[in-house]
């Protein structure tokens, strides 16, 4: 188990507001860590600190020397005055044409390979960004709400893909997500963030933690219970619960 990244006592202040305080976490190889938390909790800020895109106002971040990172920002503003196709954009990551085709195929965006980057739709952009992140053969994948705006079919596929990638590349993954129901089952550690780390641990244990319940409310904890329960077994097309057979229903 190689340690890839470690945050020590991380804090961030801006505009006279404490946005993050006292965050301690470490990311290991071949582990998936998911950060959840309400809007404005500081999730994106935390990722930016981990990636050295902002400087913490207190604490420090240790990164494994020579760490290759694939990053997918929450919002990407593309300069409309630069003519660039999706393919060329991906080539900038230093990949071959073939690898690009394969990556887009995997993220389900091969249709837009020749389109101008500025014109593709919101969901297509997310898929392209994920393709770029994985083209780098990263040791660490950092994903900020990776399936935001992706259609239902795609969401499940993409989370599936992230897991597969983890196994293939044996890389660490840290991501932010609101899709508790889809993510919980595919993650090793959940970090529940609201300006500080409220609780963290295995998905099952976190979802019953008092801090978690306070943050998301009992009502939604119930919803979540439904989701996790949804992934514990399968339903037939009438919604009845059928036998738990992993090979058949694709959840694990």
């Amino acid at each position, binding site marked *: 188990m190689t340690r890839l990244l470690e945050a020590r006592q991380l804090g961030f202040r801006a505009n006279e507001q404490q946005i993050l305080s006292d965050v301690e976490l470490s990311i290991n190889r071949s582990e998936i860590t998911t950060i959840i938390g309400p809007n404005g909790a500081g999730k994106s800020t935390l990722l930016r600190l981990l990636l050295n895109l902002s400087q913490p106002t207190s604490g420090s971040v240790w990164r494994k020397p020579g760490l290759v*990172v694939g990053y997918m*920002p929450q919002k990407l503003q*593309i*300069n409309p005055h630069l003519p*660039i*196709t999706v393919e060329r954009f991906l080539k900038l*990551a230093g990949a071959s044409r073939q690898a690009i085709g394969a990556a887009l195929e995997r993220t389900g965006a091969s249709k837009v390979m020749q389109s101008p980057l500025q014109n593709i739709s919101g969901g297509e952009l997310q898929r392209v960004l994920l393709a770029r992140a994985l083209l780098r053969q990263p040791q660490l994948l950092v994903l900020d709400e990776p399936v935001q705006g992706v259609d239902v079919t795609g969401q499940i596929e993409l989370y599936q893909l992230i897991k597969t990638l983890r196994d293939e590349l044996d890389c660490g993954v840290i991501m932010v997500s609101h899709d508790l129901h889809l993510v919980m089952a595919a993650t090793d550690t959940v970090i529940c963030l609201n300006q500080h780390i409220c609780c963290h641990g295995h998905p099952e244990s976190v979802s019953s933690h008092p801090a978690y319940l306070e943050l998301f409310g009992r009502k939604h904890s119930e919803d979540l219970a439904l989701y996790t329960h949804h992934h514990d077994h399968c339903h037939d097309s009438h919604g009845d619960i059928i036998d738990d057979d992993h090979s058949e229903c694709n959840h694990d």
Partner: protein
Amino acid sequence: MIELLLTATTAALLLTAISGPLGSFVIWKRIAYFGDTLAHSALLGVAFGIWFNINIQLAVVAYCLLSATLLTRLNRSKRIALDTLLGILSHGSLAIGLVLLSLSDNIFIDINGLLFGDLLAVDTTDLYIISAISALVGGLLCYYWRQLLSVTVHPELACVEGINVPRMELLLMLCLALIVAIGMQVVGVLLITALLIIPAATARKFAETPEQMAIYAIGFGAIAVLLGMTLSATADSAAGPSIVTAATLLFLLTQALPNRQ
């Protein structure tokens, strides 16, 4: 007549070959006024040169490189748009230069010479300088092309991917400053900044990738140079402004073409 214009045309074509790609960056980064800013602030360079008794040409080049460095620094805070910074640097140095000059006696600066240059007066020494600078800047651009482009498309992604973003931005600015500082003294700032932006803007309409834009920009620049030289030879107009006129008309013409549907 032909042999008379040969040196001038060669110089302009050489500049075009390098201003095409550089100009594309200028358009992508929205710093169309970079050249003008350096031209304006060159006045302050002249004032300093006189003050400290340095060779004025060198002082101007040094000051241009310094301005570019300063600009890159100031821009890092991101609170103020690059074009605003350019505007302030430009007017600020111009004004300070004017004040300094009006305080000292008997200094003649050829503002008009800096602005409009004199392409027809280019001699072989100038040609060598232009060739050397073009080769240097062209080599740097080719070598760092992918990194420069990454930084322009999305600095944060580039940073995460291990590119030294500040260094690349500085490199680009210094290349620009160098070509403007040299061009300013040889062909005038009007021609050099126009060659930077107008052909690249013309190319924008037809290009689908950054490389296409850079190459088309060279092409449109070359056409403008040849047309402009012809105009100058036939209508007996000043060469620099004629080339810029040709480039502008070319731009307007292509804008009138229908978009590909």
